[in-house]
């Protein structure tokens, strides 16, 4: 029973990780930027979700606002921050991104207060029993949505011309243009979708925790990086697997190894182990 419950909980945790990391994978896959500020968009989504839900009482509006806000933020970040830095060494964008993230955190703190926001009417708290396991509605919804979105993105990325066009811009942006691929459109689109996903994930985490804090992105900021690296950098399928595996490792690890290492250490010990055996990550693109 404990085993099953742990398994179920790792699935929930893995799905959350997957949602957060997916957007990052898109961005990384396209521009090779370690986009730490992605976590800022995630937090932005969470705040917008709570604020709008508290104001309107509509979950749909909350998600819409969060995704819209985050994607506007994301595209703005790309245009203003990353675009001019694309032909610089990657750590330049990394540090810029870290600066952005710190600024985001502080803006949230100054605007919404340090102690965080909660839902006045926390949605989706009903419980469902499946095969003896009890889930919150919100937990099930997270699992279902991440499965759907990942399926869709995986298909888009590998099976469609848009996906291939995106990948072409990674290898050689200039030549991609020479074959009619509109670089700016493709990149904006990627940031748009990736950031919307971050906002989406933010609202879910807000619902699950009933707490939105300025610093809620700081764990995703590095965990998501670990996940996309574990997944082989840039592959949707790999990200999904890595997120689930990490959820599993953390759940069982903290339960059985908690005395030796903390949760982060367990996750990263696993990451290091995998990378030493498979330097290209669990699932390299091919």
């Amino acid at each position, binding site marked *: 029973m404990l085993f099953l419950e742990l398994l179920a909980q790792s699935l929930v945790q893995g799905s959350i990780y997957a949602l957060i990391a997916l957007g990052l994978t898109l961005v990384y896959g396209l521009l090779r930027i370690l986009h730490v500020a992605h976590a800022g968009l995630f937090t932005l989504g969470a705040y917008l979700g709570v604020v709008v839900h508290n104001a309107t009482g509509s979950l749909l509006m909350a998600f819409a606002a969060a995704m819209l806000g985050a994607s506007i933020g994301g595209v703005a970040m790309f245009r203003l921050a990353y675009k001019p830095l694309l032909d610089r060494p990657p750590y330049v964008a990394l540090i810029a991104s870290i600066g952005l993230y710190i600024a985001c955190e502080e803006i949230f703190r100054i605007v919404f207060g340090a102690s965080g926001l909660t839902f006045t009417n926390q949605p989706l708290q009903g419980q469902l029993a499946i095969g003896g396991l009890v889930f919150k509605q919100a937990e099930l919804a997270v699992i279902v949505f991440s499965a759907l979105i990942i399926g869709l993105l995986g298909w888009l990325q590998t099976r469609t*011309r848009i996906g*291939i*066009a995106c*990948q*072409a811009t*990674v*290898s*050689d942006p*200039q*030549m*991609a*243009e*020479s*074959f*009619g*691929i*509109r*670089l700016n459109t493709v990149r904006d689109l990627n940031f748009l979708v990736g950031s919307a996903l971050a906002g989406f994930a933010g609202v879910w985490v807000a619902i699950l925790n009933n707490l939105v804090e300025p610093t809620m992105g700081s764990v995703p900021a590095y965990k998501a990086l670990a996940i996309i690296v574990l997944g082989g950098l840039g592959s949707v399928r790999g990200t999904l697997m890595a997120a689930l595996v990490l959820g599993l490792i953390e759940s069982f690890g903290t339960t059985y190894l908690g005395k030796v290492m903390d949760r982060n250490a367990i996750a990263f010990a696993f990451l290091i182990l995998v990378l030493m055996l498979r330097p290209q990550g669990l699932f390299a*693109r*091919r």
Partner: protein
Amino acid sequence: MLELKNLACGYGAFGAVHDLSLNLKAGTLTALLGTNGAGKSSTLMCIAGHVAQQGGQIHFDGQDIGQLPPTERVRRGIAISPEGRRLFKDLTVEENLRVGGVIHPASYFAQDRDRVLALFPRLGERLDSLAGNLSGGEQQMLAIGRALMTRPRLIMIDELSLGLMPKVIDLCYQALKTLRDEGMTVLLVEQNTERALAIADGVCVLESGDVAWQGSAADARNDPELAAAYLGMH
């Protein structure tokens, strides 16, 4: 169909080409020749829209395309097989070809791909390999094939024979002849001057960014001085 009027282009303050006027008629093959660093590749990349145009005009089908972005130029029918091949290394051969045909409806793809594979059967055997792993010659074939996938009306090929084995060079020239005869315009940069002169209609020789000689290929073939001075023939 393509007309360069006093074209100047370069990088930042540096001018790679100073004053190039060139007129390509539809269905002709023009060879752009010159020693290393003469500015040939820069010219092609400028026509494709990647090297800054510093002066003059580029007319295509009578319209000035100098201000158009590269994405627009390829839609009008200008394709390039660039110096250094510039393949999409992380994509497979098939996907590279797919990107080549991305401006056309998906239904064109199978047919166009088969045409390329007929020209370069070797690529057919390697369809699922990553482009970055191909041998030098295979990459060259793919670069040309990819350009053909755009169904160009003007194809620009930089260093056609680079890294290709003699048999494939022959095939390529054969194919160029056919394409030209079907009405495609070709702008060819070659170091293998003999081969280029043998097939070309017009010739333009660049030297340090300036036109050193321009005329018909027939004249060029009969001008031993030119051959010795600029074309490195012996």
